[in-house]
């Protein structure tokens, strides 16, 4: 329009940001998701007990990073589609279906979204799956995934400490330590560590307070 160019692939002014540390990881018997709980507007902590782990189906959850508004809107739409899916097909959707929905939304609206999402789900067929959907809207199936501003500090840690088929206790310790490090070094991450464990028994929530997790990394 009249040669006025626009750069919308950028956080809008005053937008609530999830400067985040999030991750998800497969283990023996399921998948686990983890996140910090800080939301910021500029330097102000708008919420220190945010829940960035969002349920889109009974055993399919996602970790949100980027713009709070964008990721919530996307997760709400996926949540709607998965409800419709299970009602129409009379069976639970797979994690792959959920991840594909996320990817479709993130890719086709890439110009107006700033959303980095990790999708993790449990189903009887595959055991557990982790998908990562970074900014451009690509889809990557992984053994474990890390994302958000805090993730840059823990690439090395995760690379050396990740093992296939960890036990539940092992994987919780792995995620807790990784996120504790990310929170320690990243100013935009903080608060409590929230986790969701997805097994055939269904979702189980965990919470770890700073008093506890700060001790494991110094």
């Amino acid at each position, binding site marked *: 329009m009249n040669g006025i160019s626009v*750069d919308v692939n950028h956080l809008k002014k005053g937008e609530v940001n999830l400067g985040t540390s999030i991750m998800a990881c497969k283990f023996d018997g399921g998948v686990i998701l983890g996140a910090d709980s800080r939301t910021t507007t500029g330097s102000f902590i708008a919420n220190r007990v945010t829940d960035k782990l969002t349920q889109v189906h009974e055993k399919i959850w996602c970790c949100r990073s980027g713009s709070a508004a964008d990721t919530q809107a996307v997760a709400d739409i996926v949540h709607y589609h998965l409800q419709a899916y299970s009602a129409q097909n009379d069976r639970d959707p797979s994690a792959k279906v959920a991840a594909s929905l996320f990817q479709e939304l993130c890719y086709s609206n890439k110009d107006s979204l700033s959303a980095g999402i990790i999708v993790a789900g449990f189903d009887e067929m595959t055991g557990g799956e982790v998908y990562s959907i970074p900014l451009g809207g690509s889809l990557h199936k992984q053994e474990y995934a890390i994302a958000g501003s805090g993730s840059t500090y823990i690439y090395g840690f995760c690379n050396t400490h990740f093992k296939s088929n960890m036990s539940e206790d092992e994987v919780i310790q792995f995620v807790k330590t990784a996120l504790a490090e990310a929170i320690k070094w990243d100013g935009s991450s903080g608060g409590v560590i929230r986790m969701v464990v997805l097994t055939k028994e269904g979702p189980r929530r965990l919470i770890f307070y700073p008093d506890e997790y700060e001790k494991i990394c110094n």
Partner: protein
Amino acid sequence: MSLQEALPDSALHSTASSVPIEHRFNPYSDNGGTILGIAGKDFAVLAGDTRNTTGYSINSRYEPKVFHVGDNVVVSANGFAADGNVLVKRLGQQIQWYHYNHNKELKLSSCARLVQHMLYGKRFFPYYVHTILAGLDEDGKGAIYSFDPVGSYEREQCRAGGAAASLIMPFLDNQVNFKNQMDPATNGTEPHPITYLSLEEVLQLVKDAFSSATERHIQVGDGLEILIVTKDGVRTEYSPLKRD
């Protein structure tokens, strides 16, 4: 905090779609507040609120900005507080040096000319202030001099400066110089005669002007400090203002 302030206005208000963000140091800021000077027959008053602000924050609820700089001269430089303080301090020093060099008092009119030179001396990096000078002239009459940031000045009967100047000035025109008023004694046929107000009346006007400005301007409030100049010297009066 300092990083935020260092950004120019254009950077703070720009959105993703407008001009590229320019990261340049901005040496100025606005500390709000308002000042008001009125000259009487044989006195002059210069008043200022005591609130000091940046943005939506209050830096201080009591930070005086009207000062006696010697020789029965009071001055206030309102706007960017750091520049204001420096200007007042340097003016005080200049008056001291004048005493040492000439062993006599500096006339108010000379003081005003000195202030003009000090302001114009920084023509291309100005003191970001509206300056008002108050005192008594050679005949002992009250005098107010007001200056723009680069030294243009004028002697006046009254003047308001700073954040709420535009709110107070019309009130002063009406109440001090009787603008838009006819003489009730002539049943609205002759203009109101120009008369000197008493000190008591002037102080009432000043207090009412400030309490009204406090109601409608967010940067004005907390306290009012009035410096009163008579032939006997300078006297200070303080009264509280609303703190919201």
